[in-house]
């Protein structure tokens, strides 16, 4: 489904990623972990055309994404939930969802909105509210719903629980679990490993822009030498 080979990427002249390989198959949940500043977000940005790719390949369902602008990448049914700036604050929640559906046919938007709301019923009560009035947890849920509007086969989530209260984190993890059940592939960059690793099929550890570990979460947890990066006891 998504395959990254020998990716070297960064911003302008500054290289952040070095020879990264990553794969996410249909229905898989892949976690990307690593310390702050290790290049996790840059990895997602380079997949989505928001960072400069110096060399290497990024393909999704056999389509090369390297030369596609972001708005066309959405059309390949790849979704991206950014850590910050992931909702339109001046728009209502309903308008946010409509914005999420700009890449699908106009007549299908209403139907898709119904599907997304049945998948995430927690969003329904605040449809008419302005997005800026939502709480942190509600904003994250809206951001996920917004991404789902484009019918993605694979969603990349950049720290979806960052800065949230424990109860909101639970709700997000529950939602992510539902997405997995729906057969949507997920690539999750997350600091909150305890909950996310349970859902994960494979993990990648990125340190200083390089892959330092690839394997199952169980194997990752067995590696005592990597614990300093995981924050787990």
């Amino acid at each position, binding site marked *: 489904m998504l395959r990254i080979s020998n990716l070297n990427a960064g911003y302008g002249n500054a290289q952040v990623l070095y020879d990264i390989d990553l794969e996410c198959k249909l229905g898989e949940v892949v976690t990307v972990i690593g310390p702050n500043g290790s290049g996790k977000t840059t990895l997602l940005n380079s997949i989505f055309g928001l960072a400069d790719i110096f060399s290497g390949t990024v393909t999704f369902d056999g389509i090369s994404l390297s030369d596609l*602008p*972001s708005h066309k990448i*959405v059309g390949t049914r790849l979704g991206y939930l950014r850590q910050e*700036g*992931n909702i*339109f604050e001046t*728009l209502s929640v309903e*308008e946010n969802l409509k*914005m999420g559906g*700009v890449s699908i046919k106009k007549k299908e938007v209403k139907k898709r909105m119904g599907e997304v709301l049945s998948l995430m019923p927690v969003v329904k009560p605040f449809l008419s509210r302005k997005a800026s009035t939502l709480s942190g947890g509600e904003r994250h849920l809206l951001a996920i719903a917004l991404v789902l509007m484009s019918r993605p086969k694979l969603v990349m989530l950049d720290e979806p629980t960052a800065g949230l209260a424990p109860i909101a984190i639970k709700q997000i993890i529950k939602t992510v679990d539902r997405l997995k059940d729906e057969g949507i592939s997920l690539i999750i960059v997350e600091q909150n490993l305890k909950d996310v690793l349970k859902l994960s099929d494979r993990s990648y550890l990125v340190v200083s822009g390089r892959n330092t570990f690839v394997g199952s979460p169980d194997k990752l947890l067995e590696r005592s030498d990597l614990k300093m990066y995981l924050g787990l006891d």
Partner: protein
Amino acid sequence: MMATLVDAITFSSFLSMMGFGLTLVRRTTGVWNVAQAGLVSIGAYVTLTLVSFVGGSPYLYLPLAFLIGAGVGAILFLVAINPLRKASSIILLVATIAFNLILISIINIYADYLQNVFGILSKSFLLTRLDFKIFGRPAISTISVSTLLIFTIAFYLFLRYTRTGLALRGCIEQPSLAGVVGVSVRSLYLFSWVLAGGSAGLAGGFLPLFFQCNPNIGFYLIALMFCVSILGGVGEIYGPFLGGWLVGFVQIFGTTLLASTLGPWVILYKGLFPMVILVLTLLFVPQGLSGIDWRAKVRILKRKGG
């Protein structure tokens, strides 16, 4: 008094149309477009050319003034702004100044050509003789206000109820997120420059029915356009409609009032009134009138009162 009021309404309508384009491209692409001046002049010359060669009412050619202004706006975006999209706002401002000088030069050459080859008085012209009357007043007042009203309502409906309008609102707030959800941000930027050019061309098309026009007419008005945009507030797309009316009324009524009190010499300095307002705005409400949280102000006043 009535004549002054009608003049103020007419002038305010022009200013609102011109300021709208300036605010729109500032909101979308972050550029202060000085070439808005040249686009206004183009509108005036579209009207003059068609009235001279085809004849009929100048109002018939307003749609064409809009379309030509829109076309030049598109060229400006594609040739000067889009290639420099990663440049600083100062560089982009300089690019629009350069483009404006080119436009004004071309219009001057064109005016010379009209005058020398066809004998049309094109270096300084006024078409008020071609206007008709509505309720005993020149039609320009009614038609310019109606056009502004239709334009404003149409733009509101477009933003509120169309998919492209929604995308434009999203794009204004967060262009990078708009791209991530599938909006072609570049196309919307182009669209906003087309609309801005069109509104400038339209306003310019009206001008010969109200002002003595020449190739630099847009340039004479550019300071007022900036005043309208800043006073109205660039943070809100409807700001220039508010700004346009305030600047127009202050200029016309302020000049009339002071000229009758201090003498007609004041008329020479009429451009100072809106500039004083601009300075006061920048000092005390830099976000412009539409950027003020009026509800919060009322709450504070009530609290003080209670």
